[in-house]
């Protein structure tokens, strides 16, 4: 009986997160924000259980995975379970993280169960040791300015275009490429 309730719970979460994410894909900012917040709670709990030796790195890796989810969001296909998609990204980043530290042996347990992602949500954010703002500042102007104005100061694309002298499409491309470049710098800084 308990097993069935557990599965129902997983299905409910899947359904809930997927609806928010799909609304986000359509440009619904507030749905996307709720999605990222809920996802970060699940991911934090998941990472805490995987990085017991290094709790200080949980928040860094969490931010890196959120950025990866954001940058890869165009590869999501609506007929596939969202949790499987997110889990594959988290597993990829976690494996890459351990490989970068050449600690193969520290990460020999397999990550096969999507349910692990929902095992212990943890909503309390900790302090990240890496400051993304500093990495952001290293990006070239045509990427940095659109991100700062649109994503941090909350200006519209049109306002940012007027302010920077870039075209509106250059602003959008700058944000898109800038966030991808940021992911590259995060990897390099690890």
């Amino acid at each position, binding site marked *: 009986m308990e097993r069935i309730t557990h599965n129902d719970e997983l299905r409910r979460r899947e359904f809930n997160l997927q609806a928010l994410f799909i609304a*986000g*894909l*359509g*440009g619904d*900012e*507030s749905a*996307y*924000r709720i999605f*990222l*917040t809920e996802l*970060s709670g699940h991911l934090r709990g998941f990472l805490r259980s995987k990085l017991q030796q290094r709790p200080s790195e949980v*928040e860094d890796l*969490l*931010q890196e995975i*959120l*950025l*990866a989810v*954001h*940058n*890869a*969001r*165009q*590869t*999501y*296909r609506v007929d*596939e*379970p969202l949790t*499987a*998609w*997110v*889990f*594959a*990204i988290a*597993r*990829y980043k976690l494996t*890459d993280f351990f490989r970068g530290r050449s600690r193969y042996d520290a990460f020999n347990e397999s990550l096969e169960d999507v349910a692990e992602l929902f095992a212990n949500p943890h909503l309390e*954010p900790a*302090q*990240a040791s890496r*400051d*993304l*703002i500093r990495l952001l500042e290293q990006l070239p102007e045509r990427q940095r300015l659109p*991100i700062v104005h*649109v*994503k*941090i100061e*909350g*200006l*519209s*694309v049109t306002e940012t275009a007027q302010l920077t002298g870039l075209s509106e499409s250059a602003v*959008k491309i700058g*944000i898109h490429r800038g*966030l*991808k470049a940021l*992911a*590259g710098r995060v*990897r390099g800084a690890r």
Partner: protein
Amino acid sequence: MNTDDFISLLASGVAPVDRSMVAKRISIAVLAGFMGATLLVIAIMGIRPDLGQAMAEPIFWARIAFPLSLMIGALSMVGKLARPGIASGPGKILIVTAVFSVWVASIYVLLVSPPDERVAIILGETWKVCVLNITLLSVPGFVAVFWALKGLAPTNLRLSGACGGLLAGSMATIAYSFRCPEMQIPFWGVWYLLGMLVPTVLGALLGRRWLRW
């Protein structure tokens, strides 16, 4: 920056996404790979002078069917591997079946031909340049497919790189068919396959480094 601020950054001003981006990127890569390989054949190798005559023969189309099957298989796998959490799918069955069929046909051809001609059938007249030519022709497709994958989200980098390399190699082999004079099945079963294996192995080796995201 704490995580809540970072979430805020990611969410604010978020634009609607183009759902067909994966298909678009891969289509561009396939188009660029084919065009690049075809132009290279015309520019540096020249198409075979008796092409019109050769195209009238069913065996010419059977020869194209071999790399074409590998291309369709690799393309379907690349499209799936580029998305996290999706299995690579039935493409590998098509690839294995195509290679197996060519090998069975090769063995049959060799068995029914006189023993002292068998080596000549396998080597043909161009075995020395075939692998090199296919490898060379696969360069534009290789670059294009890696560009496409780099902008997507492959999580199995080695397999994605290998499938990308095979896709480039099979497109190169199709283009090379318009130049290559060899019409014996055992020749394709050895040299075409080796030619396509070069970019496949390179893709597997380079994928781990080049496709990281």
